């Protein structure tokens, strides 16, 4: 009787003094994405951790949420960037064409200046009415080509030659 009382007290004391430790909380298992299959993924708890190949760890729940969001965004991002690229191209093309036009205008200015310089030099050598005389001479020569009378032809050619002869200074 005394013995059983002692055992009883001891048991109570043991229970009160040293509660049995609860099993340690297990850290969620980490599953490598490389080893996952459809079945394994489906069997994972929402909080199960998946380790991706770059070392990133993510719960199944977050993985699904992120994937859904990313899939929604991919086409939008592609489209946005495409439109931006098209706008940039249009701008760049406009600038290219504008620059080209400006360069052409500048080059034509130089050509025009050179033509004017040469015409001026020509006039200085042949007289200020050189352009008019040349034109008249060309008309006479053209007329000479068409005439059937040799004497008239000679006369026209001579008139043209006179016009082309530089004035005596």
């Amino acid at each position: 009787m005394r013995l059983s009382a002692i055992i009883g007290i001891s048991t109570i004391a043991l229970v009160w003094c040293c509660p049995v430790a609860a099993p340690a909380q297990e850290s969620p298992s980490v599953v490598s994405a490389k080893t996952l299959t459809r079945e394994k993924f489906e069997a994972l708890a929402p909080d199960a951790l998946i380790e991706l190949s770059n070392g990133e760890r993510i719960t199944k729940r977050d993985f699904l949420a992120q994937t859904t969001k990313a899939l929604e965004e991919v086409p939008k991002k592609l489209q946005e960037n495409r439109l931006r690229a098209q706008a940039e191209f249009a701008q760049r093309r406009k600038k290219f064409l504008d620059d080209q036009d400006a360069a052409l205008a500048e080059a034509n200015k130089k050509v025009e200046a050179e033509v004017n310089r040469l015409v001026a030099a020509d006039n200085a050598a042949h007289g200020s009415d050189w352009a008019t005389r040349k034109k008249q001479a060309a008309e006479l020569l053209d007329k000479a080509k068409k005439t059937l009378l040799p004497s008239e032809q000679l006369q026209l050619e001579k008139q043209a030659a006179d016009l082309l002869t530089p004035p005596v200074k």
Partner: protein
Amino acid sequence: VGGCHGSASTTWDATFTPLNDEALIPWQRIPCSISIGFGVSDSCQTMGGHNFPFECNPAGPPFLTLPSSSIDYQGWHASGWGGGSSGYDQFWPSPSLKNDWVFDSWYIYWDNFGGGSYVNASMNSSNPATPVVGVDWHADACGLAAYDGSIYINGPSGVPY
């Protein structure tokens, strides 16, 4: 240049340069190749599909619609679980550019997700009439590698390329 009666016309040297323009190669003229072959989740241009594996995202739509394009080249690669997939895609103008039209520059934008998914793109323009876009990609386990781009060319205005 001698003329009649001893007259001489003046000769001038002139250089004529054609007016140039810039353009985008239309996508219909950009064929492509995929090293791992076309599949429901591996596509370039209009070949293959834009599937994202159901096993990766049971709640999401399995087939996505990429924005349609009249000018761009594009590729899509998605992988299921496991080690992912990798490959090399190429795009080039066919037939080659003609009438002095040549490669000018290029554009590519990519978007990828999932672990170590990546897109590495390069341009080989050693033959300026046939520039080749090369895309080295990897779609990790349940990851995606998608891209979209354009090839810009330059040549004589009003002349077919």
